[in-house]
């Protein structure tokens, strides 16, 4: 466990010593801010029109806004996740520091876990920026905090699963750009492969729909905790980290 902590700490430092962390934070602050602002504008307009027509505003505005916002964050994540994970192992392979790790008395699993945890921590820092936006809603109204918390759990789990796959792709190459591009491609496919299920109800399409990370997100954004979706994400994390471990092991036999 101590070794995991060691690796985690080194990774976190390297995120925050280099400009990577700050650039990502800045990017996310802008993007989340824009999402929030535009959603707020839309609903202000909508409620004003409703009032002018003399209707009651029919829905719970803060909840509608957070639901939309949490629907947008994973899309941002698609672009952010490759940026977070691409250097994890690719950089170590390029500079040769991987030799230090593999010849030290530390297990591969500890290295992988430490790195993946650092990546998820980094992503959590970015998620926290959106909390700033959500906090405004609490300031001016009284939304229910429980579904919001569940949504955040969903966002976290989905990202953690994709980050695990990103970690895996980072072990495959020395080149960060290739690792990043492969991760982006995989994340995007995992994101959209559910679409096929909307028009097609054959078994393979249903399987594909099941494998999509976005379909399992719906229950979370509705504010319900569905064990089926929870298990899906946790399994995906395990599969990603397992593939990483196998890839690191094969590195020794191949290189």
């Amino acid at each position, binding site marked *: 466990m*101590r070794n995991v902590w060691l690796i985690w700490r*080194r990774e976190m430092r390297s995120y925050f010593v280099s400009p990577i962390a700050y650039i990502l934070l800045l990017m996310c602050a802008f993007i989340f801010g824009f999402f929030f602002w535009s959603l707020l504008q839309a609903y202000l307009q909508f409620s004003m029109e409703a009032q002018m027509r003399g209707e009651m505003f029919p829905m719970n505005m803060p909840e509608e806004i957070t639901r939309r916002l949490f629907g947008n964050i994973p899309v941002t994540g698609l672009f952010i996740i490759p940026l977070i994970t691409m250097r994890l192992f690719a950089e170590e392979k390029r500079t040769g*520091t991987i*030799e230090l790790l*593999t010849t030290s*008395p530390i297990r591969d699993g500890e290295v992988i876990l430490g790195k993946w945890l650092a990546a998820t921590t980094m992503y959590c820092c970015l998620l926290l920026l959106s909390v700033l936006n959500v906090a405004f809603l609490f300031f001016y109204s009284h939304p229910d905090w429980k579904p919001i918390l569940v949504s955040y759990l969903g966002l976290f789990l989905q990202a953690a699963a994709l980050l695990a796959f990103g970690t895996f792709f980072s072990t495959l190459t020395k080149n960060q750009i290739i690792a990043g591009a492969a991760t982006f491609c995989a994340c995007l496919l995992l994101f959209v492969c559910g679409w096929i299920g909307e028009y097609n109800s054959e078994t393979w399409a249903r399987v594909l729909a099941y494998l999509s990370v976005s379909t399992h997100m719906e229950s979370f954004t509705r504010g319900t905790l569905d064990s089926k979706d929870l298990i899906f994400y946790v399994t995906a994390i395990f599969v990603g980290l397992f593939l990483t471990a196998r890839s690191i092991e094969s590195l020794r036999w191949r*290189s």
Partner: protein
Amino acid sequence: MITVKELTKRYARNTAVDHISFEIQKGQIVGFLGPNGAGKTTTMRMLTCFLPPTSGSATVAGFDVLEEPMEVKKRIGYLPETPPLYPEMMTGEYLSFVGSLKGLRGAELKQRIDYVSERCAIADVRNKQLGKLSKGYRQRVGLAQAIIHNPEVLILDEPTAGLDPKQINETRDLIKSLAGDHTIILSTHILPEVEQICQQVIIISKGKLVATDTVDNLQNRSRGAESVFVEVAGRNGALDTTLVQARIGKVSGVSRIVLKEKHPAHSTFEVETQKDHFVRGDLARAIVEAGWDLNEMRSAAVSLEEIFLQLTGKQEATPREDAVVAGASK
């Protein structure tokens, strides 16, 4: 301390290390000698558990590299060809990270960091970023991380490659000073380095063990025969090189003459001598008496290649075109 038996590493297309066996006693400095691509790094990587061997076995400090890699890793300090440095880290921070990885903590870790920084003369860059250090400092930080946990065995892959002469000497002295406490294997393709630092030599070529011997024995075996460079100039501004070659070939003890550089007025030859023949005096006299000027005479460093040839008794596969075999011209 280290026992290697029939160690083999095969890749899809080639065999990098081919049935190598040797043994290293505790406290020795062993030079791992061979041309580039001979399999030095691969062998070292197998000893450090970075690569698993295809067949054969290696034990370090009594532990098998395949069976108990964790125990082996605890007892090994390894400096790869390029020091494994994280460019964004500070030197002190990096040493602390590596020390913790190797299982040191608390006061012991602090004390070891102080010790290795002083020992490797890197105390003055402890608060500098590794990426901004000069090559010499990087190499010494690499050495510092290898010895931080006071390992029984030190494996150094070309520790002096890419350093300037002053740094090379400092690094060699440092390695020599470490010998008492550690068993050291260092790889190199520079022969004098082995002569200076090591007690034992393991020579490999194309993945095969060519010779393993003490340095003294090796030197005795290779000494005797030497190569001399001579630059000869003609008095009247022209020089007939074949005439010079024929004349030098007649000097007793000369085994071979190679024309190295040819100019209209002067030319350079490499003269190889037979074992235990000291020919320089005769050579100089012969050239001057023939009416040429002797501009320069210096001994050519015996290259590793030649040591190989001598040790293995192999003939060169393709004789150089302009070589004149001494016996034939007589």
